[in-house]
């Protein structure tokens, strides 16, 4: 039994089995939840790559699985990543029934997670691009179940994610050539440009992010939230893998400057669009863009604290997106239009849904005492130390999203003729209120809740500062 078998091959086989239950949505959601939870627990307790002694028995969990001459490697340093993605799977599985998402969500979501874990584990690294592309193809029926119609957002998503494949493959080849022949400036340029383009397509970086708000509007909000959370998180980790793997790349001033420039553009443009948005799904999309921009800015700090900020911001971000997507899906399930006009006065009828919507938005905007604030505040401090104009622009972008959030809150709490009542059902109420409490707890006690998880992530990138 080796690590890739536990976290890739067995879950892949279980995905196949899950397909037989996918018509019983409650059962398949429950099975997905327990599979993901078991894998998270195993990632916590199993010391991969070292010997385990159980009484007289001593055994080792090897890190490598060789498949068709290629290697899948999951080391002890990948623990944080495994906990993060399978934890994400468990979290989203909890909301499947309440969100009324299509019944194929359970098997397809697990399949996507397994493919993306394999993408990070595969060696040589260039195969990651192809595995991510297959995961993208698996996400299409998830976001666009039978009965829907492919809009421009979904088709753009497919185009950009597919175009990333040649760019990353070419970057992988050119980067390995640069390692052999470091003085070849042309190959270095090819590697940098194609890697930059590939990451820009994957991460929906400025100016290739137009599909994000469109997809959020066209697909089921819960499915769109899941795909956007998972794909962007994976792409960020793969980008860090690239930086970690190639010395000339992580020391390149141009690459780091590009990260900073596009990061600022994303935060500012996303924030401005969010401030004046009337559509809740698009506001969701712009919030993702702002948050991705902040993640790129944290990486651009090129320091240990920058990476810690990036890692510390991941869990709050994923929980905020889950709460927001679930609230949107619950509204859609009630046939409530997902616009500012549609949710006017909703706080009086569905207070937990309204609170979840408002707080998730404000959390991603970096409002004090909410989950994303500690990481965002630390980011602003570090940015200000390196470049004050960048910090000011980032602050303004964040204000834009906060303005959108406050506008939403104002609309949700507008007085109506009806009195106060709690209209949510028990399961929705439990999930949403737990999400809200976690958002508040992480905001108030960030160290106490997250512990040393962010620092553990840095072990996967030993070459980064």
């Amino acid at each position, binding site marked *: 039994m080796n690590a890739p078998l536990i976290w890739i091959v067995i879950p892949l086989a279980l995905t196949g089995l899950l397909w037989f239950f996918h018509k019983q949505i409650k059962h398949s959601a429950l099975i997905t939840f327990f599979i993901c939870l078991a894998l998270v627990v195993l990632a916590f307790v199993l010391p991969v790559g070292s010997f385990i002694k159980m009484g007289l028995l001593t055994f080792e969990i090897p890190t490598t699985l060789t498949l068709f001459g290629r290697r899948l490697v999951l080391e002890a340093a990948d623990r944080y990543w495994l906990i993060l993605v399978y934890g994400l799977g468990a979290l989203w599985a909890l909301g499947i029934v309440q969100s009324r998402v299509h019944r194929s969500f359970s098997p397809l979501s697990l399949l996507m997670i397994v493919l993306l874990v394999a993408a990070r584990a595969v060696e040589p690294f260039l195969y990651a691009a192809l595995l991510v592309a297959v995961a993208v193809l698996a996400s299409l029926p998830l976001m*666009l179940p039978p009965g829907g119609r492919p809009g421009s957002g979904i088709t753009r998503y497919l*185009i950009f994610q597919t175009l990333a494949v040649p760019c990353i493959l070419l970057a992988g*080849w050119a980067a390995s050539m640069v390692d052999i022949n470091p003085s070849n400036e042309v190959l270095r340029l090819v590697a940098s440009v194609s890697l930059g383009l590939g990451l820009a397509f994957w991460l929906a970086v400025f100016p290739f992010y137009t599909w994000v708000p469109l997809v959020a509007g066209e697909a089921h909000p819960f499915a769109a939230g899941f795909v956007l959370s998972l794909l962007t998180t994976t792409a960020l980790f793969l980008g860090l893998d690239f930086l970690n793997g190639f010395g000339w790349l992580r020391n390149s001033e141009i690459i780091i400057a590009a990260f900073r420039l596009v990061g600022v553009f994303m935060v500012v443009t996303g924030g401005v669009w969010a401030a004046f948005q009337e559509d809740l799904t698009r506001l969701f999309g712009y919030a993702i863009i702002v948050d991705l921009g902040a993640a790129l800015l944290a990486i651009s700090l090129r320091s240990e604290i920058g990476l810690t900020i990036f890692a510390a911001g991941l869990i709050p971000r994923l929980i905020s997106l889950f709460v927001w997507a679930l609230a949107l899906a619950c509204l859609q399930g009630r046939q409530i239009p997902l616009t500012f006009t549609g949710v006017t006065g909703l706080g009086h009828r569905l207070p937990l849904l309204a609170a979840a919507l408002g707080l998730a938005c404000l959390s991603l905007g970096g409002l004090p005492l909410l989950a994303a604030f500690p990481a965002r505040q630390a980011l602003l401090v570090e940015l200000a130390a390196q470049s004050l104009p960048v910090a000011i622009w980032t602050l303004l972008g964040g204000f834009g999203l906060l303005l959108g959030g406050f506008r939403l809150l104002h609309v949700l709490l507008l007085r109506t003729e009806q009195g106060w009542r709690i209209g949510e059902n028990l399961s929705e109420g439990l999930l949403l209120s737990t999400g809200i409490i976690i958002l508040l707890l992480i905001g108030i006690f960030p160290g106490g809740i997250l512990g040393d998880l962010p620092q553990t992530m840095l072990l996967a990138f030993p070459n980064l500062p």
Partner: protein
Amino acid sequence: MTALLSVIALVLLLGASLVLLISHHWRWSIVALALQYVAVFLLVQQVWPLGLSAVKLVVGWMAGAVLTASQPEAGLEEDAVSWATRIFRTVAAFLVWLVAYALSPVVVEVIGGTEIFHFCSLVLVGMGLLQLGVSTRPLRIILGLLTALAGFELLYAVVEDSIMVAGLLAALNLGLSMAGAYFLSLDSTEESR
């Protein structure tokens, strides 16, 4: 012999990619796609073993078959058959060919291979991107992606001959055609309602 095959492949590629761009009949488009993969096969077999390069042909034809099975009548409907549109697209295609011609010596310098080989690969990439830029219909988008990817596969074949990469790229091509078929089936379901 190799030069002759390259010239045949070039003529096939130019014709097929132009038909893919301007045709409004799905049958013609699928035939052009099939011919395009014949040209890709003729080129790839110059740098790969024959058996491995046949994968490109088989996969390309299978992708065409998958798209054909979904009866993509509606896939090209959006574009009203106007001569102005066709002339515009043909002129744009000529521009793409010119750019490909200008860039191919640079690519040869960086990657290796022959100019005619890389001219073909760049033509395919350019025509695919052009196709993606001029339409929003699912079938055209999938045809554009398959064309651009075929161009890249040609370029990449010079530097990488791994069976695993060939297999995964084949899976990606088939996956794209299945995604296209799925999109088209959604489209027709919507219309039948």
